[in-house]
Structure formats: C-alpha cells, structure tokens
C-alpha cells in the first residue's frame, strides 16, 4: 500500500515537472541540460524548489532523477543529424554569441555534466562522442569551409 502511494506520488511529481517546467523549454537537449543543472555537483542529488514544495523533497528528487535518465537516453539515441538540429536550437535559445558558445563547449566540454550517475557507460561514451561531432559540424557550418574539428 505504502509503495503504491509513493509510486503514484512520484508519477504525479513527474507529470507536474513535465507540464509546468519541461514543456516550456523548446528542445529536448535544453531539457536535458536543465535537469542536469538541478543535480548537486558534490552529492549528486537532485533538488527543485517548486517541486519539493508541491510534493515531498524525496518524491521530487526521484521524479527529477527519472526524468533526467529518460531524456538522457532519448537524446543519446538521436541520429547525428537530429542532434545537430537540437544543439542548434539550444544554441539559439541560449542567446550567447554562437562562436563563443561553440569555442567554450568544445574546450570545456560542459555537456559532460549532463550524464546521469547510473548511465550505461557505452551510452555515455556515445553521447559524449555525438556531442563532440555535432559541435564540430555546427562550427564547420558557421565557418563555411572544411576545418579540423
């Protein structure tokens, strides 16, 4: 009985997260980065103030963790062409200078934090590799001539 109540509660928190927060982010890659940003760098635990207020902190944490894992696997399964499109949308919505954005992302690789803690290592590798490729493709397109990625 207790477990059922808890599951329903996590499902409610998850639905709430999708409807109120994630649906406002225009691309799946943006949602992934957002969810990763709700995780504490030191402890690896998730926190979302609004969600924790509406539901219990533990329930909110579980919902965030599930959403993060699901979106991570969805983005990792994208064909490269779709990922390039996603990254392009994310770049546009970030309102950063595109060249500066691409340079920073290629050098610092901040997208590494988007990998969930318990992700399958091969999928994590594929994700990182695909992002590196997508960034190189975007840069190639912006420069308009072949470059070393």
């Amino acid at each position, binding site marked *: 009985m207790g477990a059922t109540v808890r599951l329903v509660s996590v499902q409610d928190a998850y639905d709430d997260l999708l409807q109120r927060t994630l649906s406002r982010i225009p691309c799946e890659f943006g949602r992934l980065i957002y969810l990763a940003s709700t995780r504490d760098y030191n402890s690896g635990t998730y926190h979302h103030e609004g969600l924790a207020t509406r539901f219990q902190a533990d329930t909110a944490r579980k919902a965030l963790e599930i959403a993060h894992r699901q979106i991570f696997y969805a983005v*990792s*399964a994208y*064909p*490269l*062409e779709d990922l390039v499109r996603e990254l392009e949308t994310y770049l546009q919505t970030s309102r950063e200078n595109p060249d500066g954005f691409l340079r920073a992302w290629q050098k610092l690789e901040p997208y590494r934090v988007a990998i969930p803690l318990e992700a*399958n*290592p*091969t*999928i994590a*590798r*594929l994700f990182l*590799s695909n992002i*590196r*490729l997508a960034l*190189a*493709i975007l840069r*190639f397109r912006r420069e308009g001539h*072949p*470059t*070393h*990625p």
Partner: protein
Amino acid sequence: MGISIAVLAAVLLFVAILVWVKSTLSGQERFSATGESLRRDGEFESGCPAEFVKQIFAKKDLDYVSGLGSAHLEKFFQQERKSVALFWVQQTSAQIRQIIRTHLQASRGSQDLELATEAGILLRYGGLQFLCGVLFFTITLAGPQGLQELAARADAWAQRIREAQLGFHAAKETGRVRGV
C-alpha cells in the same frame, strides 16, 4: 611468395591477438576499478540496449557526415565511432568474463550441476570471446560501419549468457530458500 604472405598473415594475426588480449585486460582492470560494468549490489547489468548497439554500427550517421563534404569531419567521425565501438566490444567482453568467473566460483560449491547446461554456457562464452576478438580486429582495421549484423549477434550471445547466469542465480536462491 605464398609462404611469405602466409607468414605475414600469421604475424598480423599474432599482433592482433596480443593487442586484443592487452586491451581487454586493461579494460577489465578499468571496469573493476570503477565498478562500471557491474552494479554495486552484485547484480549483473543488462548490458547496452540493442538499439544503441545498432546505432554505433549503423551507416546512417556516416552517410550524413559524408554528405557535408568535409574530409576532416568524415575522418573525425570515423575516429569517434571507432573509439565508441571498441569500447563496447571491450566492455561486453570484460563483463561476460566477469560473469563466467563468478559463475564458475558459484558452481564449484553446487552439487546439482547439469553438465549439458554448463558445457553450453562455456561454449557460448568461447564463441562470444572469439566474436569479440574478430570485431575488435575488424573495427581497428576498417571501422565499425558494416559490422552491424556481427555486433548484433555478439550482443545477442552476451544477452543469452547474462540470462543464463540470472537463471542460475535464481535457481540457486530458490534452492537456498527451500533448504531453509
């Protein structure tokens, strides 16, 4: 002429086997150190889902990159995909070796072993390690594209070994409960 080609092929094969053994051993050490391939509670991970294995070895992404008309991008893509594919082969091989090691340790203390089942598991294990060796060698030489079917077969064999091991564990647990 024929003899020198045969000697060259033998040397190449020997070097490939050495590289393969070295890489799988280092891979295994790395996995053991980080606990990447096995769950903390000792359960066996289900491995990389088949759809991702398919994606790693597929030609679709290569076609897309080739269409961009940059030799550098294409080379970069080949390097990246090769690295991911080799990682998958090493991980699969190391994970299955770990499963078999655990299985052999567990079966030493078991009194109701079925010889046919045990032989089947070991045969499948030998076949899978051979297949991983072939995949490793071919990916290193020519890249992962075009090896989709071979990779799918290796993945299916690995999955069967994982399932057999899970079945063995379940049977052992049931026996333990009954014994109590």
